[in-house]
C-alpha cells in the first residue's frame, strides 16, 4: 500500500508539468485537467486512509523509499516518504480542500486568459505541500517548504502586471526566506548533533544531547515556522499576499500553506518537549500573534485583509497550542483542520461576494447582501459561527480545547496564556461580527456608488477587462463556485463535533504526538463558560457599533490604535524604515565603496605605475652627455659599493 504515496504527490506534479509546458493547446481543458489530478490525489489519500484505519493504532506508519538523494560522507539524504496519522490528516485536508478550491476556481477564474497557468501553479502548490507533509526527513521537508513558497510567490503575483501584486509576491518570498534560513540552520544543527536529519533518528535521540542544543534547534525551527505561518515578527507578508486571486488566499494563505509552521512544530514535538525554553518562546509567539492578528483584523475595511488578520490570529492559537507540548499538540492540529474548513469557506464566500460586486473589496461599500446572495450568505454565516466558536460548531470544540490547554499549562504562564487566548476569543467574535454585519446586513451602501473607492484599488483586475465600472448588480455565483462553499460549510458545522465525540481525533493522533492532560486550575466547564461570556461581549460590542448604527462609507479617522492597526500596527513602516531604506543605503554605499575603494586601489596602482613611467621618461632627454653622467655616476657608485663591501 505504501507504493501509493508517491503517486499521491506525482499526480498534481504531473498536472503542473503538463499545464505549464503544454502551451495554448490546453487552454480549453487545462482547468479540468488540473482539477481532475487534484481529485485523483484526494482519492489516493482516501484509499491510504482506509488502509491506515484498518491497522492497529501502533502500526499506522507507512514509509516509501524512492532513491538516495544526496550522499556525501555521513551526510545522507533520502527521498523517503512517511505516512502516519499526522501526515495523513494533512494529506486529506490538503487534497480535499485543494480539490474543492480547484473546482471553485474553474468558475472564479473563468474570464482570465491565463487560467491554464493558474491551475498549473495550483497543482504545483499541491505537489509541494504534499511533499512537505510526507517527507521523512527535514531536508526533503525543506524542498516542499520552499516549493510551497515558490507556488505562493507565483500565485500572489499571478496578476503580475500590477506592480502591487509583484511587490507583494516578492515580499512574501523574501520574508519566507528569512524563515527558511532558520530551517536550514536547524537542519545543520541536527546534522552536527545527531549526524542525521531524518525524523526517526533525530526525534528518538533527543534525550542524548544537551538542552542547550535542543533549544537552539527549537528556536531555529520556530523562526522557520514564523516565516511560513506569518507569526510575529515575520507576519508582515500575509496581508499583502491578499493581492493574489481569492481562491489562492483560501487555499494557500488560509487553509494549508500557512499552517505548515504548526505542522513543523508538532512534527518536531520531541525536540520541543525536551527544550522548555524553546517551548516558552513558541507559546509567547503564538499568544502575541493571536492578539496582533485579531487587532489588525478589527481595523481592516478590505474584506480579504480582515480575513487575513483573522488567519494570522487563528494560527496564533495553533502555535500557542503547539507550544504547550503534549497538552496541546492534538488540539493544535484539530483547530488547524477545522480552521481549514471554515476559513477556506469564509474566503470562498468573500470571493463569491467580490465576484458579484465587481471585485469590490471594501466592506464599507457592501451591505445588505443577504437578499442577493442567499447561498453565500448562509455558507459564510455558518463559517462565521464556526470561527467565533458558537456552541456546537467546529470552532467551538477546537478553540475551547486550546484555551483549556493554555490554562492547563499551569502557573503564572498558564494564567497569562489562557487570559490572552480568552481575550483573543472576544476580539475574534468582535471582528468577525463586524465583517458579517458590514457585508450582509445594514443598508445597501453600494447603491449610487458607481466609482470604486480610491484608496483600495481593485484587487481583481479582471473587472477592468470586463468594463464593469457601473453600479454593481449583486448576484449569486454559479454552482461550480457555490458547491465547494456548501461542502466547506458542512465541514465547518459538523467537523468539530465529529472529531470531538468520543475523542476520535485525540485517539487518532495520540500515537504520533503523544498526549497529556496537564493540570488545569479551572474546570473545563468554567473555561467554556468564560469563553461564552467573551464571545457574547465581543458580538455585543460589534452589534452596538456596526449593527445598530449605520456604517459610514468613508472610514472615520478613528483612534490612534485603529489607525495603527489599519497600518498593520506599524510593522510595515518599521520594516520600510529600517530594512528597506537601511538596505538601500547599505547597498548604495557598498556600490560606491566597491567602485572607489576596492577598484580604486586597483586603478590607483595602475595609475601609479603610469605616473611613475611618465616621470622616468623625462630621464631620456636625448643628450648624450647626460647619459654619460649617469653612466659615470653609476660606475662610481658600483666602485664605491665594492670598496665598501671589501672594507666591511
Amino acid at each position, binding site marked *: 500500500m505504501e507504493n501509493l504515496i508517491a503517486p499521491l504527490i506525482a499526480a498534481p506534479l504531473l498536472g503542473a508539468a503538463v499545464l505549464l509546458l503544454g502551451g495554448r493547446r490546453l487552454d480549453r481543458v487545462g482547468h479540468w485537467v488540473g482539477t481532475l489530478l487534484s481529485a485523483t490525489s484526494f482519492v489516493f489519500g482516501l484509499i491510504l486512509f482506509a488502509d491506515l484505519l484498518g491497522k492497529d493504532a501502533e502500526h499506522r506508519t507507512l514509509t516509501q523509499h524512492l532513491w538516495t538523494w544526496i550522499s556525501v560522507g555521513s551526510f545522507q539524504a533520502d527521498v523517503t516518504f512517511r505516512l502516519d496519522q499526522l501526515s495523513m490528516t494533512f494529506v486529506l485536508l490538503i487534497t480535499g480542500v485543494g480539490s474543492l478550491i480547484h473546482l471553485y476556481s474553474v468558475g472564479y477564474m473563468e474570464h482570465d486568459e491565463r487560467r491554464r497557468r493558474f491551475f498549473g501553479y495550483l497543482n504545483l502548490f499541491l505537489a509541494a505541500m504534499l511533499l512537505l507533509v510526507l517527507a521523512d526527513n527535514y531536508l526533503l521537508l525543506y524542498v516542499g517548504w520552499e516549493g510551497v513558497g515558490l507556488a505562493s510567490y507565483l500565485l500572489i503575483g499571478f496578476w503580475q502586471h500590477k506592480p502591487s501584486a509583484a511587490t507583494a509576491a516578492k515580499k512574501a518570498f523574501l520574508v519566507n526566506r528569512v524563515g527558511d534560513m532558520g530551517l536550514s540552520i536547524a537542519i545543520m544543527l541536527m546534522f552536527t548533533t545527531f549526524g542525521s536529519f531524518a525524523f526517526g533518528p533525530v526525534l528518538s535521540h533527543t534525550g542524548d544531547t544537551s538542552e542547550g542544543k535542543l533549544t537552539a534547534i527549537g528556536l531555529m525551527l520556530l523562526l522557520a515556522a514564523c516565516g511560513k505561518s506569518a507569526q510575529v515578527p515575520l507576519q508582515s507578508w500575509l496581508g499583502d499576499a491578499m493581492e493574489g486571486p481569492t481562491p489562492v488566499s483560501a487555499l494557500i494563505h488560509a487553509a494549508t500553506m500557512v499552517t505548515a509552521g504548526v505542522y513543523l512544530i508538532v512534527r518536531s514535538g520531541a525536540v520541543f518537549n525536551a527544550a522548555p525554553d524553546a517551548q516558552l518562546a513558541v507559546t509567547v509567539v503564538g499568544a502575541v500573534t493571536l492578539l496582533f492578528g485579531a487587532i489588525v483584523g478589527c481595523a481592516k475595511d478590505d474584506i480579504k485583509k480582515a480575513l487575513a488578520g483573522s488567519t494570522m490570529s487563528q494560527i496564533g492559537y495553533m502555535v500557542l497550542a503547539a507550544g504547550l507540548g503534549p497538552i496541546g499538540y492534538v488540539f493544535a492540529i484539530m483547530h488547524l483542520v477545522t480552521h481549514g474548513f471554515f476559513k477556506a469557506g469564509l474566503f470562498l464566500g468573500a470571493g463569491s461576494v467580490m465576484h458579484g460586486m465587481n471585485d469590490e473589496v471594501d466592506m464599507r461599500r457592501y451591505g445588505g447582501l443577504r437578499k442577493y446572495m442567499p447561498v453565500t450568505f448562509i455558507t459564510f454565516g455558518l463559517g462565521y459561527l464556526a470561527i467565533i466558536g458558537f456552541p456546537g460548531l467546529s470552532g467551538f470544540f477546537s478553540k475551547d480545547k486550546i484555551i483549556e490547554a493554555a490554562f492547563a499549562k499551569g502557573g503564572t504562564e498558564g494564567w497569562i496564556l489562557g487570559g490572552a487566548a480568552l481575550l483573543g476569543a472576544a476580539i475574534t467574535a468582535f471582528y468577525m461580527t463586524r465583517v458579517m454585519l458590514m457585508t450582509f446586513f445594514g443598508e445597501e451602501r453600494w447603491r449610487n456608488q458607481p466609482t470604486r473607492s480610491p484608496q483600495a484599488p481593485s484587487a481583481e483586475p479582471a473587472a477592468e477587462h470586463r468594463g464593469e465600472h457601473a453600479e454593481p448588480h449583486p448576484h449569486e455565483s454559479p454552482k461550480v463556485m457555490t458547491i465547494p462553499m456548501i461542502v466547506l460549510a458542512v465541514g465547518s458545522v459538523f467537523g468539530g463535533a465529529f472529531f470531538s465525540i468520543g475523542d476520535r481525533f485525540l485517539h487518532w493522533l495520540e500515537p504520533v504526538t503523544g498526549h497529556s492532560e496537564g493540570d488545569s486550575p479551572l474546570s473545563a466547564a468554567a473555561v467554556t463558560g468564560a469563553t461564552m461570556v467573551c464571545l457574547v461581549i465581543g458580538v455585543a460590542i460589534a452589534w452596538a457599533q456596526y449593527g445598530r448604527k449605520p456604517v459610514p462609507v468613508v472610514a472615520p479617522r478613528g483612534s490612534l490604535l485603529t489607525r495603527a492597526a489599519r497600518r498593520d500596527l506599524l510593522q510595515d513602516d518599521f520594516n520600510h524604515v529600517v530594512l528597506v531604506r537601511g538596505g538601500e543605503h547599505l547597498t548604495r554605499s557598498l556600490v560606491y565603496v566597491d567602485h572607489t575603494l576596492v577598484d580604486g586601489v586597483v586603478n590607483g596602482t595602475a595609475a601609479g605605475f603610469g605616473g611613475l613611467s611618465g616621470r622616468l*621618461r623625462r630621464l*631620456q*632627454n*636625448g*643628450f*648624450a*652627455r647626460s647619459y*654619460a*653622467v649617469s653612466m*659615470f655616476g653609476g660606475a662610481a657608485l658600483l666602485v664605491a659599493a665594492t670598496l665598501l663591501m671589501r672594507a666591511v
Partner: protein
Amino acid sequence: MNPVNYLYLAALLFTIGATGVLIRRNAIVVFMCIELMLNACNLAFVAFSRMHGNLDGQIIAFFTMVVAAAEVVVGLAIIVSLFRTRHSASVDDASLMKL
C-alpha cells in the same frame, strides 16, 4: 720603477678623458676623449699584467685596440654624416633620441 706609477698615470688619463666627455660639446673632442679613456684602460691592463705576471691583461689590451679601431670607423662615420645633415658637430644638437 714602481709599476704602480703607471696606474696613477692611467687614472689621470682616464679622469681627463671622462671630464672631456662630460664637459665638451664638440663631437670630435668627445670622441677623442673616449679614445683617451680607452687608452688609459689599456695602460692599466698592461700595468696589471706586468704586476701579476700573467698575460691576460695584455691580450685584453689587444682586444681593446681592435674594438677601438672598429669604433673609430663607425663613430667618425656617424659624426661626419651628422655634420653633413645638421651643419654642427655639437652633441647637444643631436638630442632626437628620446621618448
